[in-house]
């Protein structure tokens, strides 16, 4: 994950050169709030980074001329991110670092620039000038699990992931638990491919899951590659981060949307009002940062209704897939009956529930 190769060095050198002209620009009293975004992938990935980019654009639009927002894409998740963050900090008031892999680098640079505000996406380390924010993606994934549980004929569903980090483990567990709430015997085959973005590998992995009998595949990597495989193999899947029905008009039943705009707008407003704090925000369906995309017309009405009900349950608090009894893969009970897992437990979740294979 943190390999330093010639390409990433050249990329970061190039990014540093790009950011260089902004150095030493001083803030004026009535000047707009200067924000910057550091992305791990290309804005054209049509996935994770793309979703952040939509949020950035929406923020600029909503805030009129009061906010500027620069961005740097393809920032490597290694030590070479530090000089890039430094350059951003020199010329901006509020810096968003949009990847789990930027955690230690963000903390390190924040120490050097105590007056600049940082916001780190999906991390858990804090500092006086570092806020963290995350999205409850797992809430949407529970709905995908419910749909899979109701519609799977083989009783085997697949989950294509990247790395074993809490974010992914939560997704796997919520997906599986929601599916099991319909069909207790359902199995979820988990396949981690050790990368966020490699369309050919994502595609080969999805083919393998399909070959092993999965008739539903949910993806937690960055490209629509797996959905295209679902379309070819005549099985089902879900859009990740964006509506991907154009890539899989029959296979995509709905999509799990990351909507960052409400959060970014809120943070820009708070900063302008001088009320920014190093908060730890974890928004979700309730705040409008997780939504389901339109359903495919092949989804039966009763499935739609059940899925809508589940999503409403997140809003009013009547539903939580992480309510006991929950057993782990070995069958050992981890959460007692009736107990809801706390956010603290979820954020460091590192075990899979019973029924997850692989």
């Amino acid at each position, binding site marked *: 994950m943190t390999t330093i190769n010639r390409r990433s060095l050249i990329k970061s050198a190039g990014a540093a050169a790009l950011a260089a002209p902004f150095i030493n620009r001083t803030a004026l009293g009535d000047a707009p709030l200067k924000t910057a975004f550091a992305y791990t992938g290309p804005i054209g*990935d*049509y996935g994770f980074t793309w979703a952040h980019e939509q949020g950035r654009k929406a923020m600029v639009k909503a805030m009129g001329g009061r906010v500027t927002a620069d961005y740097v894409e393809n920032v490597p998740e290694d030590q070479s991110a530090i000089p890039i963050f430094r350059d951003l900090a020199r010329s901006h008031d509020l810096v968003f670092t949009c990847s789990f892999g930027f955690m230690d680098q963000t903390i390190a640079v924040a120490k050097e620039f105590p007056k600049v505000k940082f916001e780190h996406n999906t991390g858990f380390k804090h500092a006086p000038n570092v806020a963290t924010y995350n999205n409850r993606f797992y809430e949407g994934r529970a709905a995908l699990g419910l749909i899979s549980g109701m519609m799977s004929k083989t009783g085997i569903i697949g989950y294509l992931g990247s790395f074993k980090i809490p974010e992914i483990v939560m997704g796997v567990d919520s997906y599986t638990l929601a599916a099991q709430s319909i069909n207790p015997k359902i199995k979820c085959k988990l396949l*981690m491919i050790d990368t966020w973005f490699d*369309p050919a590998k994502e595609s080969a*992995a999805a083919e*393998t899951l399909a*070959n092993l009998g999965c008739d539903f595949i949910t993806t937690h990597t960055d490209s629509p*590659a797996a959905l295209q495989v679902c379309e070819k193999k005549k099985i089902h899947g879900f859009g990740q981060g964006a509506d991907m029905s154009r890539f899989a008009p029959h296979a995509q039943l709905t999509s799990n949307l990351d909507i960052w705009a409400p959060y970014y707008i809120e943070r820009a407003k708070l900063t302008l009002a001088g009320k920014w704090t190093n908060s730890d925000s974890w928004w979700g369906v309730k705040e409008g940062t997780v939504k389901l995309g339109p359903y495919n017309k092949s989804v039966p009405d009763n499935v739609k209704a059940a899925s809508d009900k589940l999503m409403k349950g997140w809003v009013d608090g009547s539903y939580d897939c992480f309510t006991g009894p929950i057993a782990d893969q070995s069958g050992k009970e981890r959460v007692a009956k009736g107990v809801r897992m706390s956010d603290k437990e979820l954020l460091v979740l590192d075990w899979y529930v019973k029924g997850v294979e692989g």
Partner: protein
Amino acid sequence: MTIDLVIAEILTVVNITTPILLAATGELVVEKSGVLNLGVEGMMLCGAIAGFAISFVCSDPAFADSLPWLAAAGPWIGVVGAALAGALAALLFGFMVLTLGANQVASGLALVIFGTGVSSLIGSAYVGVAVQPFDQLFPDALAQQRFGKLIFSYSPLVYFAFIMVAVVGWFLSRTRAGLVLRAVGENDLSAHSIGYSVIGVRYLAVLFGGAMAGIGGGYFSMVITPMWAEGMTAGRGWIALALVVFSGWRARRLLGGAYFFGVFMTLELYAKASGFSFLPSQFWASMPYLMAIIVLAVMSARSRGGSQAPACLGKSFIPDA
């Protein structure tokens, strides 16, 4: 593991191996002529965006009335476009290293950065759109038959890749032109002194390599995942480069080596998904590289099985006036 599962996994292997094989076959010819072009990844990306953009434009409904054949021919035109785009990128490289005598390693790396950048720039207009995949040459009766799948279910580019390996192998070892190309790669001064155009031969080789890399890139954007995403080849160009060395600069071993990598990549995924937990997944992920080291060690230990690296590989040739 049932027979059907094995068949399905073989299809996956072929799918992920073909683009690497295409690019490596081109690079083999380039290196045999004495030129080291490290820019395979960049040329592949140029081919990927060109192939996708052309087949997308051809599928535009605006042409449905005036040129009804265009949508069906789109992928074929796309492949030609991918080859031309790769060759164009290679021409730039050729101009730098052959005409201007620039350093080949630096120019090749520059080509990677250039190809990545220019493909992102052009590709920004094509994010989030899809085209029909360029697959299955034969009719369903053959291609969907249980065992027929193994032979008939592929994209035309898969057959093209096999044919090209055979043609390149035959060309290099059995033809006069191939002999000249090898002579240029082995000893440029001698070839020059007996009247062969070293620069001319190398230009042709570099252009061929670019076209093959472009088609390999097009395989990503038109066959495996019919879409455009920035940097979608995800480092396969570097694997193609490594394969040429791995094969000891021989076409037949190139074929074996490419499938060797493909099989292990697929085995890794299969082992993880089916829960072979007796070995950690990291072990499977490192298998292709571990096996590569073992094979290379065994190969170099055998005196007759040594590599056929061209003697002038990577050296600039500047003819005296």
